[in-house]
């Protein structure tokens, strides 16, 4: 009978754990395998939970089992699994302690004596487990706590510290004060404070994460505005240059017409050759039949030329490319800006090759001469000084490519940095 009750409590705890996982992680495996692992954890739990092993070892085994199971069935990094396991086990301990010590103080006996009043003990512990289930369900429904999954570095350390110390403290209380009926109220009060503090810390971490993300979003917006302003200035410059060219063209036509009227055919020919030679630079040199792509490429082409970079562009008919304007502008501007910046740091030949070809997919490739680039964990180290407005170029490109379900790769080899993306059309 005892074993059945223990198995039932363990099942309730497993259900709470399941809700807790669902609140935080994305599943890594199919539903069937997920359930199979949960049942396996529950079964393994039965093997040692009622044994004569020291309670510290039982708690350690439970932590290990839950962490391993979480790693198997859920996506996420190992430290995120450890953190969530500690939080869950910590809360599970808090609920058990509050209910047991709360009931013992109400009845006026110690916890050790309460264990012998079988019926009362079963009701109390079951109530504790049901409350844990309710807590897990609230956690599942209340999304602000879910931010804990993306914790890194010092935030992870800070948020791990409290659940670990809470769990350790609870173990200590449970093992050493079971016979102390007169301090049960204090223990309940202490556990309640511990629970509230744990919840408050998790909530605060969620808020901090939120505000960090908002800061990041602001930086991205600010960079987007910078790009848009840059493009408007370039367009205005092109417009002025075009007007000047049109004006000059009218004058040149007039001069040719005057020479022809005077019968100076050889002079007119010479003049035409001269003005042909003068027009070596053009304001618009890319014509892919896509106005946005052309505008960005023309602008970046001029910028690159001003920095002494040899630019080669390959485009086919891009009139059918129906990507969002802001996505296109941010994508191309960031990639080309990075390439120009990379070229500028090279002492020798500065080359930039850009290719945008629409076929079954849109193949976008930017290749430039570059100093060695360190690529680590799918990112490259930024050389820009202001980290508020810069440093998000590549992550923005990656984020847009993610939204477009594109496949991409980048690499540095033999003095060349290459970025290639295949975007579904």
């Amino acid at each position: 009978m005892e074993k059945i009750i223990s198995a039932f409590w363990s099942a309730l705890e497993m259900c709470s754990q399941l809700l807790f996982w669902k609140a935080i992680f994305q599943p890594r495996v199919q539903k069937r395998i997920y359930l199979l692992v949960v049942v396996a954890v529950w079964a393994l739990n039965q093997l040692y939970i009622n044994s004569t092993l020291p309670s510290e070892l039982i708690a350690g085994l439970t932590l290990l089992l839950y962490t391993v199971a979480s790693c198997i069935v859920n996506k996420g990094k190992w430290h995120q699994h450890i953190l969530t396991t500690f939080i869950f086990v910590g809360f599970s301990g808090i609920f058990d302690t509050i209910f047991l010590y709360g009931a013992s103080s109400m009845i006026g006996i110690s916890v050790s004596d309460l264990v012998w009043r079988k019926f009362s003990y079963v009701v109390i512990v079951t109530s504790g487990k049901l409350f844990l289930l309710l807590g897990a369900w609230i956690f599942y429904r209340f999304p602000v706590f879910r931010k804990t999954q993306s914790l890194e570095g010092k935030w992870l350390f800070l948020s791990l510290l409290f659940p670990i110390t809470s769990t350790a403290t609870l173990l200590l209380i449970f093992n050493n004060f079971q016979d102390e009926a007169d301090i049960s109220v204090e223990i309940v009060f202490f556990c309640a404070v511990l629970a509230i503090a744990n919840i408050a810390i998790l909530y605060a971490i969620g808020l901090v994460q939120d505000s960090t993300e908002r800061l990041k979003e602001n930086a991205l917006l600010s960079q987007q505005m910078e790009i848009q302003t840059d493009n408007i200035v370039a367009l205005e410059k092109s417009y002025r240059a075009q007007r000047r060219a049109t004006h000059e063209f009218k004058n040149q036509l007039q001069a040719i017409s005057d020479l022809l009227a005077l019968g100076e055919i050889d002079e007119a020919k010479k003049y035409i050759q001269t003005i042909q030679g003068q027009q070596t630079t053009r304001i618009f040199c890319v014509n892919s039949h896509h106005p946005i792509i052309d505008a960005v490429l023309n602008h970046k082409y001029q910028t690159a030329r001003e920095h002494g970079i040899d630019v080669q562009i390959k485009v086919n008919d891009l009139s059918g490319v129906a990507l969002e304007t802001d996505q296109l502008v941010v994508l191309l501007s960031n990639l080309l800006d990075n390439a120009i910046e990379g070229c500028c740091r090279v002492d020798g030949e500065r080359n930039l090759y850009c290719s945008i070809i629409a076929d079954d997919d849109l193949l976008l490739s930017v290749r430039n001469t570059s100093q060695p680039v360190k690529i680590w964990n799918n990112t490259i180290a930024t050389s820009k000084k202001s980290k508020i407005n810069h440093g998000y170029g590549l992550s923005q490109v990656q984020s847009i490519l993610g939204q477009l379900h594109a496949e991409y790769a980048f690499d540095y080899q033999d003095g060349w940095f290459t970025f290639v993306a295949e975007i579904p059309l």
Partner: protein
Amino acid sequence: MIRIILCDDDAIFLERMRRDIRATLKKLDVEAVIQIFTEAEMIPQKTMQECDIIFLDIDFNDKKYTGIDVARKIREARKSAIIIFLTNYIEYAPEGYEVQAFRYALKSEIDKKLPQYLRAATNRLFAEKEPFQINVSGEPITLYLEDILYIESQGHNAVIFTQNPGKKSGTQKEYKVYSTLARFEQQLSERGFLRIQKSYLVNMRRLKQYRCSEAVLDNGITLPVSEKTYSENKKKFLLWRG
């Protein structure tokens, strides 16, 4: 020995180009036959078929054709020819992609850029023309990398499937070699070949689409793909295309 055509309506410019190209190729230790034409219609068909590199003006004075039209003819005659456009006004447009222009060079900058462009062109040329020796039943055979479609493992043999680029049917050839696919992979992985599945080594020059379900070659043949290595191989293929 490589064959170069220079075609521009400015005879003085052409002579200067020929002199500069000779000097540059001498430094690169490359022998070449350089032919110059001031009118594109004077280029004999045979010369076009043998041409390795062509420097081609885009805007011909008093002519009905443009350099793009000439490039189309060259491309028909010689698929692998390297076309470098010479121009006073660069315009990157779909027509340039259609004829697979290698570079666009401003005439005003050609003196400065010529060594760089020639070096890139000869590198490309030699990489494509790179011979690959195989042994079929004791008989040595020379293949060119660009002609190889893929290599398939069949028992104790590896079968090399070849076809001239641009031809979709009729000219496919097979060479059965007593060797393992792993051996070919070792020789060719640094030269643009990709092991897409345990039985197939594909030439990325001839690979048109690479999806997690299949690989499609430029002549329409589809081959199976290993899901396990897809992600890593896809990155290699993307970087190759870039």
